[in-house]
């Protein structure tokens, strides 16, 4: 059976209705893996992406490495990987999810190998390198800085080879329909036509990635505005650990670089070393408890903290970061390690043998997210989540290399269990499920409005979140942020939407803005409640880590208002 389509002409115009067994929202690494796994179990799968399938989201931008204890480079075990992950997570990982991540990682990496991903090899085995926080060399990659595009390409090919997977590009979910406590499908915006689609599904998987778009400086694709979190909250699911946003420490800052991932300096450091220097050309990480010394061992939360503290103390580089210096590395070593990338840098006017570059932290990844059980199911029956969209596996700080592993492992698992749940679910659908979204959309289309555009308000949120709930927070800044976000929310109904239906980006921007507002509110609320500093959550007013906060914070919507509570950490290791 493939997804069935029918068309009903209602008063508000033609609404296309689709029917499927498993609906997947988001077609990055997690979504595509989920689609393959669900289809393997039989039945129809519908895979949506608001960009083009396999080209948006975080996966395509993941130019670095994938961590899995396959033990090809040196003896390793999933258990060691788990211990490293838990240590980096600062005591609050959901250990059950971390264990699934580390134990299933090798299967997925080797499966991708069989599907044709060209992991770099040496002497007949998959080459694995080290990264901060990993005690073994366990990070696989595709040259040169091509891991994300390569794995996305493999998954696109696999997905397109399965007839029972229907793919839809330029389609963004705007509501998950729930009745009697069970997910029944979704309403989505078809950007190409500027009209709504309704979708009946027996199970739904949210795989729409993280929230990097709520910040001014961000390293991921521009289309992750926290939609997964917003959709989950509105559907009645819980979020967990929303205060833990990972800021990648050494993202490119200056001189201006185009055509390259801003976080590409990470592999440069682990392959070649590279000195992190403040504006006075002095090494500094060691003053913050790290032991860097050009060998690149400080984990991410530690390095981000040290860099921003140097800038704050007036010892930053000219553009407000620090220097990364490779001038001690010979030209032929640079070329051996990075080949054509060196030429791309030269085209950008960057000669690493002659000049340092400037780097600074950027919003990179979200440790928190949708709360799921070991089957990747939320507390709403039939609603699953996978990939960066879920919270818990990485606690308060994620190790380099765990994100793509997470996308594959949790995607596969969500696909399997969602398909199973679909088989056990009745197929109930009513047009009444969609009434709220259809009415809201109809109102949106009648608007002309002279207010600011949704895109302009998005920019203001990005500035606000960076300044108040970025790498450093304080009780006062967070309280101010909540108030300002409330003001933005009240503007939603007055924003200007330009005319025209086809590819009207104002419509997409408006729904993104809704997601950004709700997600930002969740981050700020959670950060305010966690009155301590831990991992990626740094409160300048409370710099110490407090043992009593070794627990997880859950958020849910109650009558349209966020409520929060604490739960003890899920442990699996004695």
């Amino acid at each position, binding site marked *: 059976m493939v997804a069935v389509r029918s068309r009903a002409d209602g008063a508000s115009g033609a609404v296309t209705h689709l029917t499927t067994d498993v609906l997947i929202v988001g077609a990055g690494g997690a979504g595509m893996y989920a689609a393959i796994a669900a289809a393997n179990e039989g039945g129809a799968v519908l895979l949506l992406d608001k960009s083009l399938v396999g080209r948006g989201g975080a996966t395509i931008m993941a130019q670095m490495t994938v961590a899995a204890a396959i033990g090809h480079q040196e003896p390793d075990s999933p258990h060691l990987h788990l211990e490293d992950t838990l240590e980096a997570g600062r005591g609050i990982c959901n250990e059950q999810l971390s264990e699934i991540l580390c134990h299933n990682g090798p299967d997925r990496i080797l499966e991708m190998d069989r599907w044709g991903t060209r992991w770099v090899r040496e002497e007949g085995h998959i080459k694995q390198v080290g990264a901060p926080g990993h005690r073994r060399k366990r990070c696989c990659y595709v040259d040169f800085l091509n891991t994300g595009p390569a794995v996305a390409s493999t998954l696109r090919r696999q997905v397109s080879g399965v007839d029972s997977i229907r*793919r839809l590009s330029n389609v963004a979910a705007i509501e998950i329909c729930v009745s009697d406590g069970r997910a029944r499908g979704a309403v989505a915006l078809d950007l190409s036509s500027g009209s709504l689609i309704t979708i009946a599904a027996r199970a739904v998987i949210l795989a729409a990635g993280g929230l990097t778009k709520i910040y001014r400086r961000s390293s991921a694709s521009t289309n992750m505005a926290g939609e997964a979190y917003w959709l989950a909250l509105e559907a009645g699911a819980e979020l967990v650990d929303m205060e833990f946003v990972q800021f990648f420490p050494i993202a490119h800052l200056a001189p201006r670089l185009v*055509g390259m991932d801003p976080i590409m300096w990470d592999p440069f450091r682990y392959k070649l070393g590279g000195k992190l220097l403040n504006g006075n050309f002095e090494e500094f990480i060691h003053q913050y408890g790290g032991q860097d010394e050009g060998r690149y061992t400080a984990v991410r939360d530690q390095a981000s903290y040290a860099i921003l503290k140097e800038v704050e103390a007036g010892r930053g580089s000219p553009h407000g970061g620090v220097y990364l210096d490779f001038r001690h590395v010979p030209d032929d070593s640079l070329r051996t390690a990075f080949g054509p990338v060196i030429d791309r840098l030269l085209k950008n006017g960057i000669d690493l043998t002659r000049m340092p570059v400037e780097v600074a932290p950027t919003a990179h990844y979200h440790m928190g997210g949708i709360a799921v059980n070991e089957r990747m199911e939320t507390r709403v029956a039939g609603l699953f989540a996978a990939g960066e969209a879920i919270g818990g596996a990485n606690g308060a700080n994620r190790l380099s290399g765990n994100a793509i592993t997470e996308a594959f492992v949790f995607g596969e698992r969500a696909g399997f269990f969602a398909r199973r749940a679909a088989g056990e679910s009745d197929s109930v659908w009513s047009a009444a499920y969609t009434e709220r979204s259809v009415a809201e959309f109809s109102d949106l289309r009648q608007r002309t409005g002279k207010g600011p555009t949704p895109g302009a308000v998005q920019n203001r949120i990005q500035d606000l979140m960076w300044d108040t709930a970025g790498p450093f927070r304080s009780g006062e800044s967070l309280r101010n942020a909540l108030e300002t976000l409330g003001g933005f929310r009240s503007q939603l109904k007055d924003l200007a939407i330009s005319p025209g239906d086809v590819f009207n980006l104002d419509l997409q921007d408006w729904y993104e803005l809704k997601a950004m507002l709700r997600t930002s509110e969740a981050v700020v609320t959670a950060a305010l409640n966690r009155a301590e500093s831990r991992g990626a959550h740094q409160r300048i007013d409370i710099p110490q880590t407090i043992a009593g906060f070794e627990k997880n914070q859950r958020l849910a919507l109650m009558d349209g208002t966020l409520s929060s509570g604490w739960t003890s950490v899920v442990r699996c290791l004695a």
Partner: protein
Amino acid sequence: MPRVTRLRIRRGSTREDGFYQTYDVPFEDGMSVLDALRWVRTHTDSSLAIRYSCINANACKTCMALVDGVVEYTCTARLHESCTTVEPLPKRPVIRDLVTDTTPAEEKLN
């Protein structure tokens, strides 16, 4: 004095009925054509339709257009201080403004 550059953009929902519209954009050394297009959308004219995903990393490969007559990724094409003309890809049906039909047929609704 802040530096300004000018974009001349082919707009419209078909190739035949298209027209050119010009926008002034603040200029910074090293900025990409995509930087300028995004600036126009958030500061001057949000109705301008463009396609992009990854922001200047040349990873998603979805932002192609004709820049001064040459097919380029707008995220890697550098802007210059004189006027730059940006038009939709020449061999694809125009959907709206700079957005052309690059979606694989089997990923479309209709």
